[in-house]
């Protein structure tokens, strides 16, 4: 396995919004999902997950309810708010643009100066 990369600044919020967008989910599940989705390529520091969740909730991008899990234990489930969905779309779009631009530049240098 290749060395794990650090998560670029600001992308954790975007990843969380994406995961939560799939349906109400609790913190531990988000951590698991991130781990799986990034296939251990990206280091998601669990310590920053909860502060990020609380920040997003505080900014009104996420909402939370206490519900029972399948095991019958109560957990805090996060879901996306309307504001959060808008944020996810704009965030994803700008991420797309950025990676495309970076990709173009990288191809450019790979092909040599023209």
């Amino acid at each position: 396995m290749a060395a794990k990369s650090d998560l670029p600044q600001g992308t954790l919020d975007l990843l969380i919004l994406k995961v939560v967008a799939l349906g109400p989910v609790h913190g531990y599940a988000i951590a698991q999902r991130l781990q799986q989705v990034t296939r251990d390529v990206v280091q998601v520091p669990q310590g920053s997950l909860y502060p990020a969740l609380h920040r997003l909730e505080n900014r009104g991008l996420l909402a939370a309810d206490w519900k029972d899990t399948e095991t019958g234990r109560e957990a805090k489930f996060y879901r996306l708010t309307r504001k959060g969905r808008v944020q996810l779309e704009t965030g994803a779009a700008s991420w797309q643009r950025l990676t495309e631009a970076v990709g173009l530049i990288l191809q450019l240098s790979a092909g040599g100066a023209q």
Partner: protein
Amino acid sequence: MTWWHRARTLAPRRRKQMEEQLDKELRFHLDRHTADLIAQGRHPEEARRQARLTLGGEEQVKEECRDARGTRWLEDLWQDFRYAVRTLRQRPGFTAVGALTLALGIGASTAIFSAVNPILFEPLPYPHAGRIMMIWDSFEGVRCDVTFHTYRELAARSRSFEAMAVMEVWRPAMTSATQPERFDGQSVSASYFRALGVAPVLGRDFQQTDDRFKGPHVAILSDALWRRFGGDSAIVGRQITLDGDLYTVIGVMPRGFDNVLAPSAELWAPLQYDAGNITDYESQEWGHHLHMVARLRPGVGADQARRELNGIALAKIAEFPRPPFASLQHGLMVNSMQGEITRGVKPVLLAFLGAVLLVLLIASVNVTNLLLARGAQRRGEFAMRAALGAARPRLIRQLLTESLLLTALGGALGIVVAEFGVEALVALSPTGLPRAGAIAVNGAVFAFALGITTLVGLLVGLVPALHAARVDLVTGIQQGSRRTAGGRQLTHRTLVVSEVALAIVLLVSAGLLLRSLERLFAVAPGFDAAHLLTMQVQYNGHRYDDDSARRRFLAQALDAVRRVPGVAAPAFTSMLPLSGDQYGVYGAQFEDGNGYDVFRYATTPGYCETMGIALRRGRLLDEHDTAGAPPAVMISESLAKRQFPGQDPIGRRVHVGPTNRPWYTIVGVVGDVKQGSLADRQTDAAYIPATQSWFADDAMSLVARARDDVTALAPAIKRAIWSVDNDQPIVRVASMDALLAASESRRRFAMVVFEAFALVALVLAATGIYGVLSGNVTERMREIGVRAALGASRGDILTLVVRQGMTLTGLGVAIGLFGAAAASRALITLLFGVSPLDPVTYLGVIALLAGVSAIACWVPAWRAARVDPSITLRAE
């Protein structure tokens, strides 16, 4: 989330709930992770450890979550506040000393600010007060009052002003059932109140038709006088008798009307000068005795008005002829009324403000030192909190909250101090302090107090907070650590040095003022003030329109007063030294044409004997110098020296006042008398018999000697005068000693204030030195113990500590002397007979401070010298 929602999270119950939920959420995470790991085949204990490790420090995550919630600062504030209250309550001694020190500093500054603010900073209490100007004639660069005809010409020709007015003092007497009374008032031209922008609240303002020669007798009353007359609004249209004439009351001024040009004025009447007869240059209409005030038109600047008036001054026109003494060729002066009002007092008040800020600074330095020392004792606590996850900014905030709370306590006490201070200031304030009525603790003053309290709170807290937050985790927890002591000691010492330096500045200022006053009261006034009673009698009623009636009254009154038991040698004078009498300067012209401005004393026989004014040559005026006798005059020594250096003036002749009357022959030379103030240099004077004067004065002062308590005799003397005519108001009853003291009330006021500040500064500096040294001795117990164990004698250790303290004092003194030399220049107008660099003052202050700080050093040094090495060494 709205602010309200955030604020609600402050509520303890809500906060507790959030904490529980946070805890529950993290616990769920850990449990699930652990369960998953166990399912993967890990040992339960190992699984739990692994789960925790992955999550990171639980407490740290919680902290970050709380931060993320955004209500953090509010919660912290609340927590810090409660913590601060607890810590301050745990140390009542520390809290009391700190709060009281700050209360002194904040209270004193607030009191001074409340006195200075209405005078220097607030606009005068009139609408668009910035547009009110005062206009003066000038002679060789010196301002003088304008004449009535100058006012008329300017009012007719200038376009810059919407209202122009002139005024003079008017002191009408009123006869009532009980006692005759004299009022302070003003004779004003019709536009006076319009120039100020204030109108009567009852009745009407003066109109041009009121202000004409031999016009109707009308008067406007102040609110206070109206209330004394019964406060009936039907007073408008009623008549009152003033100076024997019936005056119709036409208006009452509003309650809050503050007449800054003559604060004691209680009623106003139109000036009613004669506008005709402009070429009679001897008339009162050409006398330089009117103050002039004018309101600029909107949009016209002071400069523009100044240019216009000076253009008029230089361009004489035929319609307005001018005599040579009012030619306006030296130009006119146009100044803002605010500037005029504060002219005399501004330097003093600014000096006060400067001084009190020094006191505040010293108080702040002291509290900073206290907090710093306290921080050192709490090093362990801070280190512990840092280890438990409190970030450095968080610790600084916590400490700032504590210092702000302490300062707020000081500020609240300071307001109480300020209330007393303002009372004392008003009670002590010299007569003639402008706007004295507006001195009060009001909104602006509260805002000021709040402002400086906050500022001081941050200032005194910052250095100690930065120090305390710079704790080294490991060494901090170990109690014996000395590693951070070095930096703090340096700060301590710097603070003490600056404190001493500031104290020196105040002490030198106070010392210079004290010496000035000493010098001033050492000045011989030229008469003997002891056992001298004075009072002023004013003529009232038309029966005294005739000069001979006035003179007859004087003679009868003197006879009556002579019969009062215990009274010796009563006499009357037109002008009384050091009483504030100032309208008695006339020209004296000698035979060779030399002329001087002199004080004119019209006296009854025996005046100089009663006053104890020395005879230098010739004879004194006596009962033979009657109206029919050849006119005789005594001149003062200074005038004799000026006009007749090395010659005998006796027998020479002089005109006092008008030159178209017979010469006065000089019969005697008397000692110089200080008329306005002990600091006066101008003592040229001429004494003429009241019976030989070209006019009889409106008011005369009686002087009489008494064997013992002079003021106790006042009622009997008043009764004696009233036995001749019980319609004569008698005012300004005072012993000469009291007048003498009052004449220097401004300097005395300044001295008392500075003395108080200097005393506070000295005490604070001494406690500062004591505090630092004693803290230092405590910290160095071990070292001192070692020294003692190695054979250092008590004397050695005493010297060691005292030397350390005195070095700090010496440094502070050296720096302070420079500051004092610079600051004393600001006081120069208040100094008399001492140089701002007076060596006696400087040496005295150095000696005083050295003495006090030696005592402050001695106590901790003594404690150090008694250290028992066997105990201190074992304690560590």
